């Protein structure tokens, strides 16, 4: 995560505009240029290594899209499908790498989203790490007593040995989490925020340019 001087609201509008634009591109060249620009931004922000980490998953998904579209349609469509997924995925990656969950939730609240919904959404992002650790512990506990949960057909049969404890613990953790949030004033009316997001002139310029560009591209 790196800091950013832009207001999350302007970044969010720019992201949505970029997604619309990328969805409307009909040529592989436009997509390739957009992808190139995004890669330059990533390099400029020194996020190359993190992006390569993302590419493990995103690259696999893009490759799958490429194969399916290639088999169903033609090579150009396949290239465009893969490039579209890569560019949109990379745009979202840039947004989340430069926007903390706290800043995002504050921005969403400022945009009128209800606080309980926004907070639970961002808090659940923290919860993912806890659940990943639990999955590893559960897998180890079951393997240690001989239950084959790692691979193969037998693992499929014993899937409940992984899913059962995980679900039960996830519900339990969610309950504990809700209790802990209540105990720190989650439901209080009139909450104030440590950082109040502030739209600068530059933010307004980004909002106008990106929204304008999206409208023009869609109309054309």
């Amino acid at each position: 995560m790196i800091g950013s001087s832009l207001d999350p609201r302007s970044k969010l509008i720019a992201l949505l505009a970029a997604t619309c634009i990328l969805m409307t591109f009909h040529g592989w060249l436009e997509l390739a240029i957009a992808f190139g620009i995004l890669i330059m931004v990533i390099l400029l922000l020194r996020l190359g290594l993190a992006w390569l980490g993302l590419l493990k998953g995103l690259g696999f998904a893009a490759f799958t899209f490429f194969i399916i579209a290639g088999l169903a349609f033609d090579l150009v469509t396949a290239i465009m499908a893969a490039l579209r997924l890569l560019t949109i995925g990379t745009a979202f990656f840039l947004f989340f790498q430069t926007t903390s969950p706290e800043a995002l939730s504050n921005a969403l609240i400022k945009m009128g989203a209800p606080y309980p919904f926004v907070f639970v959404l961002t808090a659940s992002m923290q919860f993912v790490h806890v659940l990943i650790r639990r999955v590893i512990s559960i897998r180890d506990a079951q393997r240690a007593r001989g239950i084959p949960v790692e691979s193969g057909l037998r693992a499929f049969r014993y899937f409940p040995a992984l899913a059962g404890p995980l679900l039960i613990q996830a519900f339990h953790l969610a309950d504990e989490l809700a209790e802990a949030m209540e105990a720190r004033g989650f439901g209080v009316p009139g909450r104030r925020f440590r950082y109040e997001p502030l739209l600068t002139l530059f933010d307004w310029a980004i909002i106008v340019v990106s929204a304008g560009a999206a409208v023009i591209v869609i109309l054309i």
Partner: protein
Amino acid sequence: MTLRFENVSYRYPGTDAWAIHDLDLTIHPDESVLVAGASGSGKSTLCRASIGLVPHFHQGQFMGRVLLEGLDTRQHPVYQLFRHAGLVFQNPDAQLFNHSVEAELAYGLESLGLSSFDIEERLARVEKLLGLESLIKRSPHTLSGGEKQRVALAAILALRPRILLLDEPFTHLDPEGAEELRTTLRLIRSEGIALIIVEHRLHEIITDVDRLIVLHQGERKIDGSPHAVLSRDTSPYGLNLPPLVRLFRALGWGKTPFTIEEAVREIDANHLSPQALLNFQEQNSIVVGSPPSTLGPVVEAEDLWFHYKDRPVLRGVDLKLGQGECVALIGRNGAGKTTLAKHLNGLLKPDRGSLKVLGQDTRRTSVSKLARHVGFAWQNPNDQLFRTSVREEVLTGPRVLQAYDPGWCNRLFERLGLTPLLDRSPFSLSEGQKKRVSFAAALAPQPGLIIFDEPTAGQDDPFRRELAELIHELQRDGRTVILVSHDLEFAARHASRWLILAEGQIIADGSPDAVMANHTAMAKGGLRPTQRFQLIQALKETRKEGKIDRVLP
């Protein structure tokens, strides 16, 4: 008056038993109170009722009245009560829900509606108080267990509550972490905050509290100064007594010392016989099933190395364990104890060196094959429960491993008190019962080596006694037992051999007394000798100095 319970009874939805029953008590400002009792005695419910989570969050049937700073908790929502009393929950993972430590600390302050200036001022103060400066930008999920607990405590302290409640804060801490927490609690107390601490491990905090309340089946059974309470018969309440109190009781001495100084003073002042204590210690130092190493090694490790993300976690471990030994693996959190234990059943494979368990090279043997010979009872039994009945839960492992012996399993059910529970869902059991199910599941394939990971964490005295008996029976059967534990008092009484692991290396190996006498290794492992050992040493020193003759009968 800070907190008052007026004839409070409460039961959770869908249950018949009262979690707390006709509870009447007052906690005064500046008081420091320890709440003790067996599992299910209502300690955690008391905490929740104090801040209004019971009944607002949990619903259920509530009778009587709780007054927090004069506010009736039934009449005020939790978000009005939280500024008066803060609760640090047992599980730090489930109370850190922000993306950074800083945001975590600020969350409650935002709830209070403070200005940015006030938030910054309070953040700076609490950061300094708990030494969180270096952690402030980190994400909570990257912290160690002790660090998470400090952050959870800081997040509550930032609210400046009049009462601070802590639910089993010492459960997951190593001895150094426990010492740090004690220091912090003393600091908090000096700020005039009333403390209510719920804890099974009484000795961890008993010297720092003014009052001890014993709960049993939701009722307040004894209440008074710690010495006065522990002078009485507490045997029906399942308390895990402080080691010196336990020792004095075993010797029939009616005193309740909490520290070595107090014990020596009592022995001196009351003309008690130190020799009787030394004899008692000698008689009890022979642990059942001491190493019959001539029976051949169960574990042979040579120059074992293991790295996690390029960080060496095990560094050249050499180890031999014999049949029938009970070995305690001790050391601070992150020293490599669990990593070493996971090598023994093949969950982890060494990067370098060799490891043979019951003659099988773990690098070339699958986990499922090793599972037939190595049983692993995990700290959290909930990690393995997935069947609809206790019977199926326990028998799944042996059936998969084709090692099902009905006679052995029936004996196991009987031995662990599971026979009446066999058709019940494992999810409906208490935590202690779940632990017993996990022990049965680990023992069902009749393993030659059994590893218990923090088996006493959060457990009451009856459970600890049962576990001790089970360990001794396993040893008598010729099975090797490994205890991975921070509970040195338990390890000293039931393990015949201690191994200290520090920074991935075994730095001490020997009988508990020999290891505790190795001051350098104990300090490097972040450990302190047990109180019983310290007392014996103090008495021996006294005898050397010739003072002991004065008090000898």
